[in-house]
């Protein structure tokens, strides 16, 4: 199973790279509304995802591994979502990378993402550390 998830990761990293998500300039141009390459990429992924989820739901397909009914339950609302999502966006724009593309950029040898990567661990750790933060988000 682990090689199977590894293969999915390899596909994901490959497509992020081909889609331009490992190019810092596309983040600047996206948020200055100059070149919407990344917006088209995300929109296309969502559009195909919508159709795929509909087909899976209507066919009643079970997962190929484990033969479970597929869980279409979305991530729940939580009180920290609005603040957290906004803060995430600020970090996304400043760093020119997201938690997935940062790993892809590292694979391409873009060393400028190293402090961003350290920050991602630090921010995740701060969340796990603070009972106040956890209480706030539950």
């Amino acid at each position, binding site marked *: 199973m682990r090689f199977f998830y590894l293969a999915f990761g390899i596909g994901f990293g490959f497509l992020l790279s081909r889609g331009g998500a*490992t190019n810092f300039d596309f983040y600047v141009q996206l948020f200055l509304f100059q070149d919407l390459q990344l917006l088209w990429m995300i929109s296309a992924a969502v559009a195909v995802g*919508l159709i795929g989820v509909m087909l899976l739901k209507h066919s009643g397909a079970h997962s190929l591994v484990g033969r479970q009914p597929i869980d279409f339950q979305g991530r729940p609302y939580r009180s920290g979502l609005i603040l957290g999502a906004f803060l995430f966006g*600020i*970090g996304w724009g*400043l760093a020119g990378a997201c938690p997935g593309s940062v790993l892809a950029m590292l694979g391409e040898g873009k060393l400028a993402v190293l402090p961003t*990567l350290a920050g991602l661990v630090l921010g995740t750790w701060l969340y796990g550390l603070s009972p106040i933060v956890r209480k706030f988000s539950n």
Partner: protein
Amino acid sequence: MTPVWSGWLAGSLLGLLTIALYWFANKQLGISTVYGYACQVLPGAGSFRSEEFRRNNRWRLWFGLGIPVGALLASSGDGVSFTTGMGLYEQALPEHPVVRGLVLLCAGTLMGLGARLAGGCTSGHVISGVPLMNRPSVLAGALFFVGGTVAVQVLFRVSQV
């Protein structure tokens, strides 16, 4: 230079990958939780050491390990090259490498903390959450874009002054 496909093509294939992961393994594609693994070596991160966390997220570790390999394959046409450049960001971020590093460390921290507060990142909330027509994911996705726009507009305007 790594070749770039049209956003529509790369995005459609990303959508197919997301659906394939649902179908094969009943898993919602999302990466940000993987950073909890790195927290296991830090003090006071009890919740990331729990058996429950490990059981639910072990797959993300393998998924996360694959990402740099895939990106390397995509760009290996001209061999691996290490670069420290940041393209257009060079004009706007501080020039001093230590100061720039601190800004990026803060940016990463905002993303790490923000993703946990929001319950997902660009992949978990947007790429796999929005297709479920899950309202919290749509809201989070919209706010990701609002935050990014504010940050880049301010950063590039201030740097022009």
